[in-house]
């Protein structure tokens, strides 16, 4: 944990600097009449200070045996695939429409997410799930799911 704490607190420190820089550009006002930039600047400064404290704490703590890495060496690829699939879904949703995008997403997740399911079940399950969601959300609840170029 020790090394990770040092790294993470540094990241937060730089984030805090970003907050401070951006908030100085806003009107700051004064203690008696705080402007929009006042609170963000204050919070940025406090965050910077706390991350330094965290960094120091990590430095001075005894280092523990760090054998396992923070991500699973075996399955990190699955994780990346899932994330990319989700982002791709968000981007094509408006173009392909809800049904098509969801259908493709589910097939992908069933196959490449964790343990690959057999194609029959991946496709079948995907059809059932996407169609039932469509029925519940679009037709029943009138949620107005995105329609793509195919019109549905």
């Amino acid at each position: 944990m020790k090394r990770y704490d040092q790294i993470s607190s540094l990241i937060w420190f730089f984030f805090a600097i970003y907050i401070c820089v951006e908030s100085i550009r806003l009107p700051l006002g004064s203690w008696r009449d705080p402007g929009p930039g006042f609170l963000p600047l204050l919070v940025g400064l406090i965050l910077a200070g706390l991350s330094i404290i965290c960094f120091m704490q990590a430095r001075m703590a005894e280092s523990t045996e760090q054998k396992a890495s923070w991500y699973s060496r075996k399955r990190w690829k699955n994780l990346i695939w899932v994330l990319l699939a989700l982002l791709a879904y968000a981007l094509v949703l408006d173009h392909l429409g809800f049904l098509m995008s969801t259908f493709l997403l589910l097939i992908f997740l069933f196959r490449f997410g964790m343990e690959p399911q057999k194609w029959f079940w991946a496709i079948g399950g995907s059809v059932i799930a996407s169609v039932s969601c469509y029925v519940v959300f679009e037709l029943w609840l009138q949620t107005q799911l995105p329609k793509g170029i195919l019109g549905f």
Partner: protein
Amino acid sequence: MDLLSNLQLAFSVIFQPGNLLFCFVGCLIGTLIGVLPGLGPVATISLLLPSTFHITPVSAIIMLAGIYYGAMYGGSITSILVNIPGEAASVITCLDGYQMARQGRAGPALGISAFGSFIAGTLATMMIMLVAPPLANFALKFGPPEYFSLMFLGLTVLTYLASGSMVKALMMACVGIFLGTIGTDNISGIERFTYHSYTLMDGIGLIPVIMGLFGISEVLLNIDQAARQEIYKTRIANLLPSLRDWKDSILPIIRGTFVGFFLGILPGGGAVIASFAAYAVEKKVSKHPEKFGTGAIEGVASPESANNSASQGAFIPLLTLGIPANVVMAILLGALLIHNIKPGPLLIRDHPDLFWGILGSMYIGNIMLLILNVPLIGMWVKILKIPYPILFPLILLFCLIGVYSVNNNIFEVIIMIVFGIIGYLMKKFAYEGAPLILAFVLSPLMENALRQSLIMSHGSFSIFFTRSISLFLIASALFLLLMPLLPWFRKRPKGGDFD
């Protein structure tokens, strides 16, 4: 007016077959809405508002009210099962409820949640009956300075929420405060950190953040784990809470009811803050606070009771003074106007059947909701038996649709995914999400209240100390903050940390 004759009026109104039906329909819809993430009572009630034009006002309000407190029952279900808060008020239930589900105790968690909600709802209704008008007048006394002090007190509650490193929890609080400043500043009209995005102009939505930070991140974490590890213990213990569970939960339920009720009455207070506060209270008075966050049933019983009694307490300012305590009440106010009912202090006098009818429907509604929810526990628990490689895409889909359905905004879906990644990293590097969410919810309210107060007092800070309620709240907050440091003054500390 005699209490007994009022009760008689209440039950005579609710037991008309039409009203009973509307009450049931409302509760049913509410539960479903609560289970589905994203879609909340606000959207549903405004959707159904036009269809109430042609029924009597009493039936309309009974149904719409049922949707609202019904959603509080349903919201905990997904929090417990899959760590996805169905409602903002159910975020805190995730902390212990989900852990209980992983230990095979989903049944007792769901059960205590339903029973707690029932007890809280019924108690709250009784309290409304007895003390509505004086409480409402008390609520009116809360102006910007009081709100600031209350939120300040709320933030000190943070210190009790943190299970791990205090420094890290405070850092997360800072991040939460920062996220809360994103958007158009209410006082000056200037935009902060929006980079001209229309989505961000009104701030980052709470729903994408909590669903990403809790729901998506949990899925990502589970994908990351070794292949054969069980996500949920497959041997389900019991379906209902045991006697031991009841013994542990009954006091938290009572305490949660009272905390929730008072916070629900305050305009702008609400079920979210109530659930956090109730959880913190429980942790503070518990003999083993370190068990919170690992599956302590008190951590489910208390917030669930709080959010139900808060949602019922929210009716008080509306029905007695015509002041809406939150967005849902504002819609109900609109419904009343459309039905030609003038809200305000005269409502009880001019429309006693409406007031007492609603109260009667709350009693019956809570019973209906208990009967609706408890038998379904078995069904919900079965869902957890679906193998995770098949379950997780469905969970993700659930989140995606849920977030989209709030504002039909793809960008919010992306925000949710981004927070999913952030939540995953936070978990890996040992930062907690609850302080972030609490700060995120509280700080805009607090900042607004602070600046409004300073405008009111022409820049003088004394306004916070010259008004009695505000003074009391600030004093309590300072007391709570300094209390843990007292032992430190008595003996020399061993190390350098303040954990």
